[in-house]
């Protein structure tokens, strides 16, 4: 027992890690987040059973199920709320900031006269600019390549999905007022974008001739505050 226990511990840890990784892999290709979320439930459930059952021989069963319990709850966690009924129209001029699920990227969306500009940025490697239209509380915008942004307005708040570089996330954003919003600075060689949220937190990146770099500090006096179709 003294000798076997640590091996069982190692095995259970590796097993749990592997299962979580597989669940992640199963969930990631999200062309439609809703479809993915509904797919995961049946996938995760059978995977769950061996996790708790396998180490039954060893003393680690309780440990495995203790850690498995929060995981069981995971699939339903990120249920996206989309397609709100009877969406209200957008204000003539509005700014929204928010973040993607998991808080990995910040997003700023501006709407003016039904024109949309938006910027997604994780401050490290992911960024995307989007332009499009907003009508009847729904917005649709596209960016470079297959990058796409959709959103709908519910009780003044904006939520939807955004994709960049082949990956997609759900996001939620709330209306903000200046100085929060979307900022951009263009030079001869590149473009820098910043998202400034209502707490004053700034997330930005620079694209210098196709290479993504950390953004310089945001100076709201010199950077352009982007509005609508700017």
């Amino acid at each position, binding site marked *: 027992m*003294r*000798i*076997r*226990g*640590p*091996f069982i*511990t*190692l095995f*259970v*840890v590796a097993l*749990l*890690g592997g299962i*979580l*990784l597989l*669940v*992640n892999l199963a*969930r*990631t290709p*999200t062309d439609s987040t809703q479809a993915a979320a509904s797919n*995961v439930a049946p996938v995760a459930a059978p995977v769950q059973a061996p996790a708790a059952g396998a180490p039954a021989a060893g003393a*680690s069963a309780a*440990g*495995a199920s*203790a*850690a498995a319990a*929060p*995981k069981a*709850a*995971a*699939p*339903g*966690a*990120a249920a996206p709320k989309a397609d709100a009924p009877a969406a209200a129209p957008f204000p003539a001029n509005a700014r929204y900031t928010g973040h*993607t*699920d*998991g*808080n*990995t*990227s910040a997003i700023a969306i501006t709407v003016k006269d039904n024109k949309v500009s938006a910027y997604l940025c*994780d401050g*490290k*490697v*992911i960024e995307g600019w989007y332009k499009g239209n907003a009508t009847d509380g729904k917005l649709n915008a596209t960016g470079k390549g297959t990058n796409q942004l959709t959103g709908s307005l519910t009780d003044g708040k904006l939520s939807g999905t955004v994709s960049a570089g082949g*990956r997609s*996330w759900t996001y939620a954003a709330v209306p903000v007022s200046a100085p929060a919003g979307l900022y951009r600075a263009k030079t001869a060689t590149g473009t820098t974008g910043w998202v400034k949220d209502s707490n004053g937190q700034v997330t930005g990146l620079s694209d210098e001739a196709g290479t993504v770099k*950390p953004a310089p500090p945001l100076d709201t006096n010199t950077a352009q505050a982007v509005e609508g179709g700017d």
Partner: protein
Amino acid sequence: MSTPPFQPPDPYPTQQSAGPAQPVGTQPVDARPRTSDPKAANILVTLAAGCVVALLLGVYGRLHEPTGYSVNLIGFSSGAYAKAWLATLAALLGVVQLFSARIMYSGGGAPAWVSTLHRWSGRIAVLLTVPVVVHCLYALGFEAYSPRVLVHSLLGCLFYGAFVSKMLTLTRRGLPGWMLPVLGGVLFTALIGLWLTSAVWLFDVKGLHS
């Protein structure tokens, strides 16, 4: 105690092969006694396994393109907070580990429940960290864009390497007595370091809530 000098499990080991007969010649700085001591090979195998695990985690974290997305846990405002609280629980259990180990090594023999407590608090602590590290590796990756992030990435690799070495140490006979407490100390230090550079940082920057 003609023990070789202490070698913490290096996340970037220079030798990955598991202890050949003469591991000495390749390492000029290594003042290991030139004996065909099976103990030396035993130590090397145990530590090298941890090094390999640490290295593999780091390489995966670096090469795998971060998805920025991972399965979330219910009941938390975001994945980051779920991770922070799991890590906090693990750190608390780490403190239990420290004190139970202290009693076990105090001499004079510890009551049986102390070793049981040590064993189970350790198991649960490591299992709690698994969802966290999967999210870290899968969604975020090994990054170095700030000192905090670099230290966190390195400690994460060190933690699991030390964990593997420590589990293997438990299963092997004839290892020097210092290995277990040293590896345990590395584990505890790494865990607290990881917690400070992630959960405490998050609570500090974004507030203490769930």
